[in-house]
């Protein structure tokens, strides 16, 4: 029983990590039709910014409020970089899908190389509060606090995102834009302003994912974001492009499946995730929450 609880909660922690990566990816694709391969870079930016801030930013550190400040710094850095990427690189290329893919792929490669050039290719120890390396006893299972932190953070981001989409004007524009972008412009709304915001939100969530992954694995390395991005894409496809709740369900499914299978059949978890992806694509190609036929205009 305690094993089950442990796997369940650590699986949800993993799901939380995937959700943070995938939520921005999904919204950006759903609204702007941009397949952002540079999304993994936002993870690394967040992680490195927090890592840098913990030692260099006055007031920031690896414990208590100082750590919170370092995390905030990393999240803001992710949002800022994402906005700049949208404004400078993506915006001139809307309606040119292939050029976008090339630019974002190139940016992700260049970004990783830049991080390597500055801080080296070796993993750096990530500043994490002592609390995060302890465990909490839940139902007889010793659950790592870092997993709980991931699960709770992702749940909060999900709730915040849903509230934002539901109760704000921009949220309304985004939901409508995911359905039919050109009709939104035909109502006199500059939908591209929402693109920048969605990039910023996605960048912030990805940066948080990068930071919490650093806490989880206790190291930060230049390629971390890119490897997590693959699972982010899988979650987005399974969940249905552009759906916030669909992405959440898919992240939970992928995280739990991977954790349970890896425990009982070591190493098969990743393959199972790919198998799940294949099954979803065969049975429900629009994704769990996607609308049949209404891919997005």
């Amino acid at each position, binding site marked *: 029983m305690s094993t089950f609880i442990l796997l369940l909660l650590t699986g949800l922690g993993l799901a939380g990590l995937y959700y943070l990566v995938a939520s921005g990816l999904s919204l950006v694709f759903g609204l702007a039709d941009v397949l952002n391969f540079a999304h993994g870079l936002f993870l690394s930016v967040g992680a490195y910014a927090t890592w840098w801030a913990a030692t260099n930013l006055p007031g920031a550190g690896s414990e208590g409020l100082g750590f919170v400040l370092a995390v905030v710094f990393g999240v803001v850095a992710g949002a800022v970089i994402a906005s700049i990427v949208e404004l400078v690189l993506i915006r001139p290329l809307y309606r040119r899908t292939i050029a976008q893919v090339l630019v974002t792929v190139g940016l992700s490669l260049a970004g990783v190389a830049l991080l390597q050039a500055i801080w080296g290719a070796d993993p750096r120890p990530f500043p994490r509060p002592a609390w995060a390396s302890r465990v909490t006893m839940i139902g007889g299972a010793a659950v790592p606090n870092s997993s709980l932190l991931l699960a709770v953070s992702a749940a909060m981001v999900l709730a915040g995102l849903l509230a934002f989409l539901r109760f704000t004007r921009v949220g309304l524009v985004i*939901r*409508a834009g995911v*359905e*039919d972008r050109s*009709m*939104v*412009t*035909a109502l*006199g709304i*500059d939908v591209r302003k929402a693109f920048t915001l969605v990039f910023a939100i996605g960048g912030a969530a990805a940066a948080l994912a990068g930071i919490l992954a650093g806490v989880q694995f206790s190291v930060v390395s230049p390629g971390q974001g890119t490897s997590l991005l693959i699972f982010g894409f899988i979650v987005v496809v399974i969940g249905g492009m552009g759906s916030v709740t669909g992405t959440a369900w898919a992240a939970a499914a992928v995280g739990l499946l991977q954790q349970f299978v890896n425990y009982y059949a070591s190493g098969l978890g990743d393959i199972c995730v790919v198998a799940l992806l294949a099954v979803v694509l065969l049975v429900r190609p629009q994704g769990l929450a996607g609308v049949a036929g209404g891919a997005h205009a």
Partner: protein
Amino acid sequence: MSAAPPTSRALLSIVDLRVRIAGSQILQGVSFEAPATGVTVLLGRNGVGKSTTLKAILGLTPAGSQVTGEVLFDGVPLLREPTHQLVRRGLGYVPEDRGIFAGLTVAENLKLAERVPDPDYDTAYGLFPELKQRSRQRAGTLSGGQQQMLAIARVLLNPNRLLLVDEPTKGLAPRLVTEVADVVARVAETVPILLVEQNLGLVRRVGRDAVVLAAGTVAYRGPIGPLLDDEQLTRALLGVGSHSRVREKQPEAAPQAQGMSAAHGAGGTAQS
């Protein structure tokens, strides 16, 4: 420019509009004008480019299409202006497929369309009280007729200087065709409309000027009465014979629309 224009002056001038989409030339030099009052009807056989004309005016042609020529709205060139900006000049668009957002509620669809601080819900709900009752319902679960009402109500929230309305009766049952015709007639009392419509009963009832497209250019331009009275001309330009085969409901819908208009006049529900 801003001085009150005489009614005869064109509000919308289209000069030599050419549109090429995915390698095929849809419009090959279309020129016409829409006056600042009344309903101008854009007619023509299926696939002749009526919807494309409206989309080109609004800058909504698909990515990669080439649009040349000139579109002047009250003297202002529109073709190189982004869609959202030219819409804010007072162009209301009711697209052919209705363009409502299925995942949003009726109220959210309307809220999204608000462009001014004091949206005119009285007019919208006055014309379509049903929308108020269904405000919390998802728009995707509405019937076709209700979706059409929502698409029209949406543009009426804002002050419009011209409405572009694309086949509002498409796919609707005869009873709803009548209802839509009533609404178009009432709206046209205050706002000029450029209307794409195949239902000749509706066209005869609300239209004043006609522009007929054929083979990518304008084949007829002038008052609507003489066009529809000339059976030979109508058949030649609009292909009414084949037309009624495609849309079986139309022959019965047309006379009904005329009958109902009288009934509507007597009923005269609240409108300020």
